[in-house]
């Protein structure tokens, strides 16, 4: 009985492990987004494939906010008139710093680290979150 149970247990464990992918073929978490000059001042630039907003401010420099709603993962939109982020799925609203204003989102929007590479390009790393006050001066 014990032998049977352990055999079944081991097999089940192996099946579950088999189903966990060993390699993820998703898009890379860290990538270049172009030259600083590509980005205008004023309203943020939305990069659809990466799902990020790139902010450029004359005094304070670059910052990158995630466009993925912290509630259930829909893509938020930026509205210029109230400068808030609105989620189309369940109505979460985030302030310009990413804080939750209302709706079901449990956490503020993520901000990602943005750095300058040696060849003068901007690089975003989605594995490194930073406080909303983080800025890259160029």
């Amino acid at each position, binding site marked *: 009985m014990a032998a049977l149970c352990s055999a079944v247990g081991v097999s089940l464990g192996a099946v579950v492990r088999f189903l966990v992918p060993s390699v993820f073929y998703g898009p890379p978490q860290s990538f270049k987004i172009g030259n600083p000059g590509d980005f205008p001042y004023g309203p943020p630039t939305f990069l659809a494939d990466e799902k990020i907003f790139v902010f450029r401010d004359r005094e304070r420099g670059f910052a990158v906010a995630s466009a993925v709603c912290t509630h259930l993962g*829909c*893509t938020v939109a930026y509205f210029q008139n109230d400068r808030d982020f609105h989620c*189309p799925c369940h*109505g979460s609203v985030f302030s310009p710093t990413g804080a939750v204003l209302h709706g079901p989102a449990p956490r503020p929007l993520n901000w990602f680290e943005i750095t300058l590479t040696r060849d003068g390009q901007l690089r975003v790393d989605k594995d490194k979150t930073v406080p909303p006050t983080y800025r890259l001066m160029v």
Partner: protein
Amino acid sequence: MKWIREIWQSIVRRDPLSTDKGKSELVFLNVWLHIHPAKVKKENLRFKYSFYLGFITFFLFLILLTTGIALMCYYRPYPPAAYQDMKDLQFAVFMGSFLRNMHRWAAHAMVVCVFLHMCRVFYTGSYKKPRQFNWVVGVMLLLLTLGLSFTGYLLPWDQLAYWAITVGTNIGSYAPLVGGQLRELLLGGHAVGEAALLRFYVLHVAVLPSLVILLTIVHFWRVRKDGGLSRPIWKLKPQKTEALVTIGAPAAVAPLQVTAASKDKTYGLMEVVTGKPIFETVTPEEEKDTVFSYPYAFVREAVALMATVTSIMAISLFFNAPLEEMANPAVTPNPAKAPWYFLGLQELVSHSALLGGVVVPALMVVALILIPYIDRNPSRRPRERKWAIWLFTFFVVANIILIIVGTFFRGPGWAWVPPWVHVVARPE
């Protein structure tokens, strides 16, 4: 002519159907029909008792199996081919859009019918002893039906599919401890993508249908072993409520009233079991209450089958299954809505993901499964089970209201928008 008759006889191997023996043999010599008894209780055939909802659910499942296999001939489970194949089915394949429509509408209808069937079983108190566990099997079938809808929803790989599944699987990741890992296991990645489509496909065409078939066999077998359907309420005899629901359930039932064997027919399990044989006795007046399954039960089932198939075909002629633009991870449609039967859930989720998306539904499922074990009131009469009926009705109505709110009263940004108000998109 004689040889034709001989061949026919070699196939059917029964007496002519004009005889009682032939009618019984038709049932019990046939592997497909012998899940029926040779004779059934007349009153149990009444449409107004079961509405044949269990049968209709089963027939819808058969439609889904056949049309599903047909669709598989043209469907490649990876993006963007999956979406192109949908377009092909809709515009190029002969009868492609008709088959796709049938598959889609039968799936919706199955969700409705399985739910109504459950309500019928509840309101007639048919989950009570000895049928407790068949109710549990039923709940599993309900969950599998929803699982099939959910996995099928991703396959067209359009915007609706992509975002409903993104939101749906993110709800799961709120489950404590294992939620995140479970989501990755289901998606085969961090987000809905190629791997997820393939996994959903495997679940949808292989794993879940096999489980439904297995559990349906168990479900039917137990209905049969419990002596067919429970007695209609109006047939319950006032003094002998207990004795009526005992056929084939040997253990610990109320004592059967056994009348002298000489004038009754008895059926029993003899020689296969040691110890006291299990007898079910049928009194002459009960015998008068039964009819042969052929033709009485079979004709009714055939009518239900034909009505189901024709209704689905008719709907499929006039209404096309929706197909939106190709899935685009960058743009969330506004509002992004799950399939209608999950909109009650989505409404709850819009208030709190953990509470509304995980805790409340999990408790509901557990409560649903435990109903026959919590409700120990032996009576099946509505008058004697007011509490149970009120409570169940409350949950059914609450669920329906939430679905209606989610479907008709939620607009862009999940804001409260009554259906008679027209919204103009807000400029970005």
